């Protein structure tokens, strides 16, 4: 299981990366993250929404209410151009951290 701090720090790039594949809603985002991380990334479900709202306020994503076939309304989020730019920046930062750690661990453990 990932630490809370790492989960919090990775929330934005994870959500942006998921939304860059197409619009989605809160429950589906959490389910997809759980599945992709094999349940190692654990979010308190409700905590996703303040992050989504903050990202919407930043102008990275936008939302719209959609009525499903069963009559239930869901709020769908999609990524905006500013979000794509933010994702590109964050991707670069995470890849930098990854490459530095990978290099260090290669020297140490191989």
């Amino acid at each position, binding site marked *: 299981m990932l630490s809370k701090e790492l989960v919090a720090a990775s929330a934005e790039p994870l959500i942006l990366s998921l939304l860059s594949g197409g619009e989605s809603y809160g429950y589906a985002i959490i389910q997809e993250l759980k599945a992709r991380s094999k349940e190692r990334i654990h979010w308190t479900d409700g905590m996703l929404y303040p*992050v989504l*709202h903050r990202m919407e306020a930043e102008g990275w994503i936008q939302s719209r209410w959609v009525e499903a076939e069963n009559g239930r309304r*869901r709020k769908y989020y999609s990524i905006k151009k500013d979000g794509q730019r933010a994702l590109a920046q964050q991707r670069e930062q995470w890849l930098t951290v990854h490459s530095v750690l990978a290099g260090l661990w290669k020297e140490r453990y191989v």
Partner: protein
Amino acid sequence: MFDLDQAISDWRQQLAAGGIKAHEVLNELESHLCDDVEQEVRSGMSVEQAFEAATQRMGQATVLRAEFEKADQAKRVRVRKNLLGVFVVTMGVFITSASFGYFVILPLALRANVQYGAWLGVDVPQASFGFICFICRFVLGMGLALAMPVGLLALVRIGHLNHRKLASFRRYIIVVNLILGAVLTTPEVVSQIVMFVPLQLLCEASIWIASRWERNELKHA
């Protein structure tokens, strides 16, 4: 018999009591909860168990409220940035268009008026043009000068100024108001002072109103 609709309604009320009051947020959380309950029931849980598990996963109202407040803070910062931009652009456009009108259009119109008068054989007194220019300058200047306190208060409202900063600008405000008094009125001391006093009073009123707003905000915080 467990009533899911009633349980959801009670849960919404608990969230509202915990400080999450926005309907849109509550609707979104409810939509998530319903999806979660439906999924758990499909995988074999009873509706009551599924509801309990889903509400636990959703988290406590007080913790969620704190996180939503952070998101609201981000929204406010963005709105402030946008408002400042609108304010600066509006002022820029107003000053540019007023200057264009005064320095370019007005002299052209007055000259055309003289020529038109000459065509018709009517004598248009040149001295009256100076008077018209003075009136225009006076009206525009008064408008701008009296709008300045409103502008200052708008900047306080959107968070770019506070009453301490305004008070620290007082000496510059006095100089600006004296200059305005000199430029906008006839060239003698009495009218300059008559103009300066209300301008300065308005600025002092802005500083006082700003300090009242801040005190009220502190009380409500």
